């Protein structure tokens, strides 16, 4: 599994090509990209920061949970940090599986968990020179370890009392 927190630009095609294979009938690639607008303001860039040592571990845990939902080990999750321009890719998630339903579920699971749990923050740069931290979700400790074996169910870390993000990426 390709799992990475990187300072370098993401190559979406390479991430996609890291999954797939002759057993699989469905490949799904999700890209999160920096938008030029948020909450009615014009954005000209985004600065991503991570608690890197922890983010690597959390990203691996998310990928492994997604693989369980997927039923295959064909999962790739790469998150970029640093300064990104509008249009650049901040996160790429690729999965493949024999059937498409599992691919859609696992892909969606991975991006939702990233937004709930990954210790990453981002600051928008507006065209007027101002900057502000994008409001996010408050991660919560896993209440019961038993939940770990049921990725797609409720009760995930961060699912209780999560704040709605005001915006940022899609």
């Amino acid at each position, binding site marked *: 599994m390709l799992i990475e927190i990187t300072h370098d630009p993401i190559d979406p095609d390479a991430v996609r090509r890291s999954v797939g294979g002759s057993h699989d009938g469905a490949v799904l690639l999700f890209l*999160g990209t920096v938008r030029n607008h948020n909450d009615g303001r014009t954005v000209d860039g985004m600065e*991503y*920061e*991570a*608690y890197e*040592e*922890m*983010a690597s*571990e959390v990203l691996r845990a998310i990928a492994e949970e997604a693989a369980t939902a997927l039923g295959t080990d064909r999962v790739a999750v790469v*998150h970029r940090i640093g300064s990104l321009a509008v249009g650049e890719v*901040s*996160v790429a998630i690729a999965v493949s599986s024999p059937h498409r339903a599992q691919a859609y579920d696992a892909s969606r699971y991975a*991006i939702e968990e*990233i*937004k*709930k*749990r*990954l*210790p*990453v*923050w*981002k*600051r928008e740069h507006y065209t007027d020179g101002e900057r502000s*931290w*994008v*409001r*996010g*979700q*408050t*991660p*919560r*400790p*896993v209440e019961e370890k038993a939940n770990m074996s049921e990725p797609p169910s409720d009760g995930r*870390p961060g699912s209780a009392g999560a*704040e709605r*993000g005001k915006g*940022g*990426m*899609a």
Partner: protein
Amino acid sequence: MRVQTRFFAFYRDLLGSTELTVDLPDGATVGDLVSSLRGRGRPFDGLPVAPAVAVNRTYRGLEAHLTDGDEVAFIPPVAGG
């Protein structure tokens, strides 16, 4: 005991620092650490009463007990993706 705290993003901006070594009585919890920091007054009282915290890179509740040498990270609401 002594723990190493780390502050990210908005919390780092608030405190003007990324790390702080804190001495605590044995048996102290995450909650005790938060109270101790907030008790220092400004700017520390700008930290939430119940922030998200990771101990040694795992999210833990305020009731979690700390051990000498622990790395305790204060995690503002996350916004990856």
